[in-house]
């Protein structure tokens, strides 16, 4: 896309935060512009780490872009520093990309991955994001997706969590044409923990799919999932969640919830949570809901002078808040909360002067 580079990057993406303890990198169409992000062109063996059971067979990489060589980026976050990696699609050719986040020492890590489309093209992206947390590593991972209404983006997140490690992941989908987030998490080390939270906002003709497969392989692991969606217009969301507790995974705690708020007559949410339990000493629960903004709450707020539109926004913000408040870093939480608010108000969430059709 010509023209996009005329806009200073500092104005382009307001998802990112300016901090002294932060490093920011751009990746344009799969190519990192900074040497600190190493580019590995070889194919990553992502499937190998998921050889758990036959259940996992369907996780093999989709071959739809078979003839395109993948672009790969490896991120090695430094301890106690927010690593921001901003992926921008700017050329219309389909892209197959692979990203690997390596936390190979025990410690606390923070990574923000943003994906954007610069321009109004029909971008098509297939991506595998592999996250490896070694023993004792704790990673806060925030995924922010803000793409145009024509974009199609399929992301496979392969999350491997070893002994005593903790993954906190927030997937915030502000806007996209058709997004498919497939999360495959493996708790393979004793006393490891995984918290997967997601918020998706959709309107118009958008379609957002979330497919979670979470495998408890080791004992005494904890997993918590909270995925929430706000759907308006003719948008669709599909949530499929499966928690598998292997026979070896005694004393597992696993919770899964998917809640959807429909703000128009024609929006649709489908939700399909599953628990598959092979161990006998476990605590597990799951549930899903789809609802609308309550008339009683609306009337109560309006009777205090809050206009109907403002009352609706307050309700939606409250609904989204349960996910946003799980983002650990205050600056990032505030920034994303503001972006969500602007999105709910129908305001632009990216930059002036860009011809993308994000909102």
């Amino acid at each position, binding site marked *: 896309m010509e023209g996009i580079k005329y806009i200073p990057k500092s104005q382009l993406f307001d998802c990112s935060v300016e901090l002294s303890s932060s490093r920011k990198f751009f990746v344009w169409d799969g190519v990192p512009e900074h040497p600190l992000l190493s580019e590995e062109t070889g194919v990553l063996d992502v499937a190998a780490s998921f050889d758990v059971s036959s259940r996992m067979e369907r996780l093999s990489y989709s071959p739809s872009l078979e003839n395109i060589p993948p672009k790969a980026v490896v991120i090695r976050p430094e301890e106690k520093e927010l690593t921001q990696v901003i992926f921008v699609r700017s050329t219309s050719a389909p892209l197959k990309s692979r990203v690997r986040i390596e936390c190979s020492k025990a410690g606390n890590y923070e990574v923000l991955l943003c994906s954007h489309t610069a321009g109004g093209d029909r971008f098509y992206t297939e991506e595998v994001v592999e996250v490896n947390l070694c023993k004792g590593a704790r990673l806060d991972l925030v995924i922010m997706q803000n793409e145009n209404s024509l974009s199609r983006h399929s992301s496979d997140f392969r999350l491997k969590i070893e002994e005593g490690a903790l993954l906190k992941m927030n997937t915030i989908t502000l806007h996209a044409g058709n997004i498919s987030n497939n999360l495959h998490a493996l708790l393979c080390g004793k006393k490891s923990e995984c918290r997967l939270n997601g918020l998706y906002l959709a309107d118009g003709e958008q379609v957002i799919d979330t497919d979670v497969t979470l495998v408890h392989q080791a004992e005494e692991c904890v997993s918590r999932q909270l995925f929430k969606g706000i759907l308006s217009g003719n948008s669709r969301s599909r949530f499929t969640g499966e928690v598998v507790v292997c026979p070896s995974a005694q004393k597992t705690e696993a919770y899964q919830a998917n809640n959807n708020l429909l703000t128009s007559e024609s929006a649709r949410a489908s939700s399909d949570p599953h628990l598959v339990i092979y161990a006998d000493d476990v605590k597990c629960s799951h549930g899903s809901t789809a609802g609308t903004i309550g008339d*009683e709450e609306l*009337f109560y707020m309006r009777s*205090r*002078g809050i206009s109907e539109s403002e009352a609706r926004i307050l309700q939606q913000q409250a609904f989204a808040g349960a996910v946003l408040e799980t983002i650990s870093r205050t600056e990032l939480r505030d920034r994303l909360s503001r972006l969500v608010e602007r999105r709910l108000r129908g305001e632009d969430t990216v930059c002036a002067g860009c011809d993308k059709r994000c909102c």
Partner: protein
Amino acid sequence: MDNLLEIKNLHARIGDKEILKGIDLVIKPGEVHAIMGRNGSGKSTLSAVLAGNSNYEVTEGSVRYMGEDLLKMSPEERSWAGVFLGFQYPVEIPGVTNVNFMRTAINEHRKHKNLPPLSAAEYLKLMREKMAYVEMDPSFSSRGVNVGFSGGEKKRNEIFQMAMLSPSLAILDETDSGLDVDALRIVANGVNRLKTKDNAFVVITHYQRLLDYIVPDVVHVLYKGRIVKTAGKELAAEVEAHGYEEFE
């Protein structure tokens, strides 16, 4: 003095069921009116219709508030014009904090009056001042609206909101229900502090109890959707002593 509220031959229904069957009521600034009546007599319907609850349909009659057609106004427009309803069952709104709720309300009122929004510091000062009216702990401000509040706390929160919005016409729908004596006194004191010569209160209640603390100028008895008797404050004592049977 001009009438603040003028209700003429008001009929209203919910679904196919007619509940108000011709209410006439005139309220002047500075007055406190009590409306008493049994369950199902139409007390709550009257307050809901005045606040603009769309579950109720007005089939006949008129309501003029400060000379304007109240029934044409949306609930938020009524609030901006100075009408306040204290809910019998205050609604819980999880995730919306009390402070965010009330600050939004106050600033919407200000926007309507072409005033700039209150700064955070100005808002906090006002909030603390009004919370003191109802002996409410400031920690309530960071909690979800009415979420996990006891019955008494919810009613105090209603009076706090009323104090924040300083309405010209406040309708208190069974604010005394579910309150113990201490909470009743706190709520009544809050109301009495807000009384001026320019505003008016409609106190809806089953019992005389609340009227020992908030002394009405006029008492009405509502029966089967009509006001069947209007008199001074002594009527409340009469109802308390003899029940509603004599009006049937």
